[in-house]
């Protein structure tokens, strides 16, 4: 395994980690307006309260790793998707301060307003992340120097929007499963009612996306045709999705959540397999594509980063797990709560 492949995988792992972790709190944001009672809304905020900003660090670190390992990819995508990323930033800022400010004042209008901001910010962020992924799968026009040659509106084509909708559905499903794990009583019963429709919504979106991918972006499936052993990923993915209602039905919330995480990890794996070695696929001229080899930092930098990751990641995983362990169990509102 060379360092370019390693970092292609590691950047994917970081973004998968982001999806698994921030995915549920973005999903909780999209579900926020589903409960009306102020106390219940506070339960939702506090279910993600201690962990949301640690989750967002995965995006920051993923962005940093992309910048470090594949600077031209970072530069082309971030400048090419300028307005979309600005919108994403506004959405992320809004939801961050909504959590922070919302319960600081008792006034109903104040809380309602921030709840809407939190919903809008979370949903917009999920949608934009999906749209960006959709464009990466579909391919974007690049010129000979690897610069984006399209426009903002050209990013909003149906395939990308479908991927956006799939991401929103996925995060909402993930968020509902997380909430089911963290709540109890009537609120949990309410959340329970959301889960099956959300699983169905996700499956419908995902089936449509898959169909569209097979029809219009067949290059994403080349690798599976050439190496049939990799079809195991698809099998595992379908099993992970099918396992969701089963675990929920049996009342094993933790297992359901892990299954949902596995779904995201496998989706990311499928995405990575389909893309490799491309990181930004250029249409109509694939010769301009950015790959893990023509757009990487020097091997020396990749080696240094590997060392940094080898030291840092185990430490990070240890205390992230510890924090989740300390805040395990059903959420309770206390005087330090949001």
């Amino acid at each position, binding site marked *: 395994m060379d360092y370019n492949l390693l970092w292609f995988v590691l950047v994917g792992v970081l973004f998968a980690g982001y999806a698994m972790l921030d995915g549920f709190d973005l999903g909780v944001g999209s579900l926020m307006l589903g409960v009306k009672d102020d106390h219940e809304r506070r339960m939702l905020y506090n279910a993600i309260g*201690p*962990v949301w*900003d*640690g989750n*967002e*660090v995965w*995006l*920051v*670190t993923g*962005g*940093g*790793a992309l*910048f*470090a*390992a*594949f*600077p*031209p990819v*970072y*530069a082309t995508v*971030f*400048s090419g998707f*300028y*307005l979309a*990323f*600005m919108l994403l*930033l506004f959405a*992320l*800022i*809004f939801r*961050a*301060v909504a*959590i*922070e*400010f919302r319960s*600081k*004042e008792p006034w109903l209008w104040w809380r309602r307003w921030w709840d809407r901001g939190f919903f809008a910010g979370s949903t917009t962020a999920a949608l934009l992340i999906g749209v960006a992924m959709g464009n990466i799968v579909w391919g974007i026009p690049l010129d000979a*120097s*690897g*610069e*984006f040659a399209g426009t*903002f509106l050209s990013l909003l084509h149906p395939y990308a929007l479908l991927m956006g909708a799939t991401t929103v559905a996925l995060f909402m499903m993930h968020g509902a499963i997380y909430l089911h794990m963290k709540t109890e009583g009537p609120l949990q019963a309410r959340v329970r009612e959301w889960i099956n429709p959300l699983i169905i919504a996700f499956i419908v979106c995902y089936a449509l996306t898959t169909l569209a991918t097979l029809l219009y972006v067949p290059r994403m499936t080349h690798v599976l045709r050439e190496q049939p052993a990799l079809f195991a990923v698809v099998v595992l993915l379908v099993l992970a999705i099918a396992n969701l209602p089963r675990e929920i039905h049996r009342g094993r919330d933790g297992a359901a959540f892990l299954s949902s995480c596995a779904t995201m990890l496998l989706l990311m794996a499928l995405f990575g397999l389909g893309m490799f070695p491309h990181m930004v696929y250029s249409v109509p001229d694939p010769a301009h594509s950015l790959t893990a080899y023509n757009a990487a*930092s*020097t091997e*020396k*930098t990749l080696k*240094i*980063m590997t060392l*940094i*990751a080898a030291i*840092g*990641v185990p430490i*990070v995983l240890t*205390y*992230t797990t510890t*924090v989740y362990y*300390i*805040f395990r169990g059903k959420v309770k509102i206390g005087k*330090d*709560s949001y």
Partner: protein
Amino acid sequence: MNVEMLSRIQFAFTAAFHYLYPPLSIGLGIVLVMMEGMWLRTRNPIYHNMARFWTKIFGLIFGLGVATGIVLEFEFGTNWATYSRFVGDIFGSALAAEGIFAFFLESGFLAILLFGWDKVGPKLHFFATCMVALGAHFSAVWIIVANSWQQTPAGSHLEIGGHPVPLGHAFEAADLGRARMVIDDFWGVVFNPSSMDRLSHTLVAAWLAGAFLVISVAAFYLIRRRHVAFAATSLKFGLVLALAASLLSLVTGHSSAGGVAKNQPSKLAAMEGIWQTEGQAPLHPFGWVDMLHGHTAGPKIPAGLSLLVAGRSDHVITGLNDIPPDLRPPVQATFQCFHLMVAIGFSLIALSLWGAWLWWRGKLDDTGYCLTRWFLLLAVPSVLLPQIANQAGWFTAEIGRQPWIVWGYLRTSDGLSVVVKAHQVLTSLIGFGLIYLLLFVLFLFLLNRKIQHGPEPLEESHDLPDNWLKQQRA
């Protein structure tokens, strides 16, 4: 306005706004460690009460810091794509290390700091507080290493289309897309000539921001005779840190300026308004730069600058006249920002000494005493001073670096994203302007409410974990 100017303004605005918060969380982090450490040592509930109150303030500040910080991570790519490709091989490692070593540490343990009071024992909580403070300091380390490398590149070389190029080679516009800096030596990058001076100066300046927030709020309570015991003790914590940090900022500032003199002569000339290359270079305590006639008006200390830089009055300082105009930074802005920072630095030393003297005399909370009363009245608005000085210091560093974005290698005007249009940057700039204005107003509003509300009464806040007393007796 063109896309270059708009991108410069947007980056300056978003970075400056973000930088209101990290110094406070770095400085306040130290204060929290001191307070909680004292509580663990003495078990005096007043320290517990203080730690809890300041933790709430810390949480609010930290939230704003996180929300505005992500923007910067994205902005290198969105607005400065050419620069990102150029420096990615070096800059990226530092950012990745920052994420792994600093941000995760901060945000993970922040959960315990804010929400873990009743979930974990006092010692583990104290450990979490220490880790949050440490994480805040680490985040400063990596970003300043990256920024210092831009000021004084080291441990790396320039490459065009894969071939090494000697320094000073002016590359054609056509080469811009194929040029990049390549790492030779990671530790050479980390310990580049300016990084340790600038890191230490930035950190102590951040401690000042935290210390004077505590001093200001405590002084406000003392003047109003509210929460007197709480305020007097908080004030002492603030003063200890303020005194140490203000004196250290003098030391670190001096060695930073020495580094600038050595490595960035054009920046030093602009900071000090020096036009003629000469020994016996004068020092201007304040002044006004006359750009038209190439002259700096104002009082002069003869040979002051030469003495400060080298300890010898005949040390030659390069003047702006010997620097080609297209390699000079904007002189007036650099000069004024620098002098503002220095002036504030000295007033903070004076204020800290004044407070320490009152403490020594045992008059710190004696509002009947005239000198105490004046001290407290000045201490209330003093929270603004380190903030202004921090901003002015960064403006000095960054404006003084112009026209370079990477000193000697890449001009700021060459670092832009070529595909981003002026109207797009204008749109995002207006967006940031409106959102940040809203955030700032809300931040001040909520901060003010928390301060007006004050700490919890001592009995109520004394809610240790149920088993704590038993543990103590056992």
